[in-house]
């Protein structure tokens, strides 16, 4: 049985819907779900088998994702770890780091938050001010991080810290414990009132040397070499949008307003286009980011229009809409992606 078929069957039997991941009980339930996925060897299919994976190809993974989202399975509570930190460790970590970190990530024993942004460093990520200062056997962190997704309830986090004055070469990539002394986490309520993000205040937080990735001053290079993972297909595989577009089509069948037919079909077409674009030739991360984030907004807008007046009340689509609205903002705003496309791909002058 191939991976797609196996995943479909397992999800059919085990699939479930859980409370919001941004509540304590929902978070715990999602962690358990990851444990069950791991036991079925479905949590990290692209990883080497030694870490619980199956060495699956990109194509296999895309098919797995299609099945996963078509089954309406829970969001991946550890996605920051699985799709951002893990590729970084595979590319730039030490063998010891991989052996120590990946197994407990794969089964969600340790859930990871990202800690990229700061109040003055959003789109301009290199403007980071939080500091990492040399100490005996490690580093001491000070400063403030924000828009840290999942941080309100996660175990550990990773991010860039300023270890020297040079804008890019003065940054170091570190991992730290969210429950360490000196760490304060303040949840940020989103539009729907839930805390998907948090601020992290760091006050003399000690981090041992073993939690530096790629060495002192290498943070920017390490982060940028895997930035595509944050923006592109590994963060938002086509399966998500194919599933959302199919849900939209089902909603339309329940409420077949002819005036909305074109928007429904257009959203469905664009989800196909994103899949084909991704699978046929591999896609520049910046292009994919712009495409999926704006598609997700369109899918949800069409759904709300179909729902009519009841769209004013909270529900799955209106919550999803609010989440979709954040898409063009996080993981590098779409404005930044357009700058990158213009300058690096089209070669337009600065």
């Amino acid at each position: 049985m191939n991976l797609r078929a196996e995943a479909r069957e397992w999800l059919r039997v085990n699939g479930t819907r859980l409370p919001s991941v941004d509540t304590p009980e929902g978070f715990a339930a999602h962690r358990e779900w990851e444990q069950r996925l791991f036991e079925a060897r479905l949590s990290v299919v692209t990883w080497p088998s030694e870490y619980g994976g199956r060495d699956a190809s990109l194509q296999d993974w895309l098919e797995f994702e299609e099945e996963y989202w078509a089954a309406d399975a829970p969001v991946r509570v550890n996605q920051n770890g699985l799709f951002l930190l893990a590729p970084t460790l595979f590319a730039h970590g030490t063998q010891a780091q991989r052996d120590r970190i990946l197994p407990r990530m794969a089964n969600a024993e340790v859930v990871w938050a990202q800690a990229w942004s700061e109040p003055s460093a959003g789109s301009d990520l290199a403007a980071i001010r939080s500091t990492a200062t040399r100490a005996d056997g490690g580093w001491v962190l000070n400063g403030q991080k924000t828009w840290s997704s999942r941080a309100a309830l996660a175990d550990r986090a990773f991010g860039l810290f300023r270890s020297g004055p040079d804008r890019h070469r003065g940054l170091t990539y570190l991992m730290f414990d969210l429950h360490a002394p000196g760490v304060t986490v303040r949840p940020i309520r989103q539009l729907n009132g839930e805390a998907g993000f948090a601020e992290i205040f760091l006050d003399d937080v000690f981090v041992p040397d073993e939690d530096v990735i790629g060495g002192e001053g290498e943070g920017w290079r390490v982060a940028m070499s895997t930035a595509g993972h944050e923006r592109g297909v590994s963060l938002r595989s086509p399966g998500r949008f194919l599933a959302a577009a199919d849900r939209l089509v089902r909603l339309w069948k329940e409420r077949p307003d002819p005036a909305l037919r074109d928007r429904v079909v257009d959203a469905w077409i664009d989800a196909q286009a994103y899949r084909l674009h991704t699978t046929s030739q591999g896609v520049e991360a910046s292009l994919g980011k712009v495409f999926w984030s704006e598609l997700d907004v369109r899918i949800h807008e069409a759904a709300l229009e179909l729902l009519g007046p009841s769209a004013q009340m909270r529900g799955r689509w209106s919550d999803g809409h609010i989440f979709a609205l954040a898409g063009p903002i996080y993981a590098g705003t779409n404005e930044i992606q357009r700058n990158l496309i213009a300058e690096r791909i089209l070669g337009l002058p600065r």
Partner: protein
Amino acid sequence: MNELRDTVRAVLRRHPGQAWEKLCAEVGVTGLAIPEEHGGAGAGLPEVHAVLEELGRDLTPHRLHGTTLASQALLQAGDTRWLKRIADGSVTAALALDGEPYTLDAPGADVVVASHNGRLYEATVTRSCTALDESRALGVVEPDLTRPIGSANAGRLREIACVLLSAEQVGAAARALEITVEYTKTRVQFGRPIGAFQALQHRMADLHVAVEAARAVSRAAVAGQAHPSVAKVVCSETLMRVAGEMIQLHGGIGITWEHSAHRYFKRAHGSWHLYGTPDAHVKRLAAARLD
């Protein structure tokens, strides 16, 4: 009219949190469109429209919408029982329109009336609703068919409702853009205020064009110079667009509970659906124009 706008804006500035009570007491806003013989100011809907545009700017909680609609319905039906107390602000009211699932300002209103098959009835609120837009009180209203009041021109009342709503939409859109413009002047990234980046400038320029056009349409509609459906379409679409861009242009803080962006966004969604979506009004216009 500009004097009225200035007065209202001054009250809103001086009395945050209790502006509505002050506007009733000091400006008599609920009596603006009620004839003098019934205790009102004998002005008209354009004056109410001007007040609503100001109230819409900061999404100030108020009951002017429902109260005005109900008083217009009562005037149509020839029922003067509550008009004096509506005019002096001591009684609040709401009007449920035929086929409208939710009624604005109904929960907590002293007087609730409903139009049904060409007649006006007393009515009761059977359910309060928790809408995404928490600045609005929405209720499900049931007419009491045993208590008829008189005849009601539901079509005309719906037109008034659309026009009054469009005033709030224009106010909200204008203010949402102002807040966004100010934010981009102060938020610095890459060593410059982000409002200096041309791509963002052009997006805000386009929003300004849209807001000014919407304002013209809404004001023309209350003056009887534009079709109310045109106002509903243009103002709904403009506020939705501005509120969506407000979130995007604010970046991360735009999606937080603390920042006002989400309140404009939820207002945009709520108003979009009240009294028919733009699509429903386009259908209506098409029927009137095209067939």
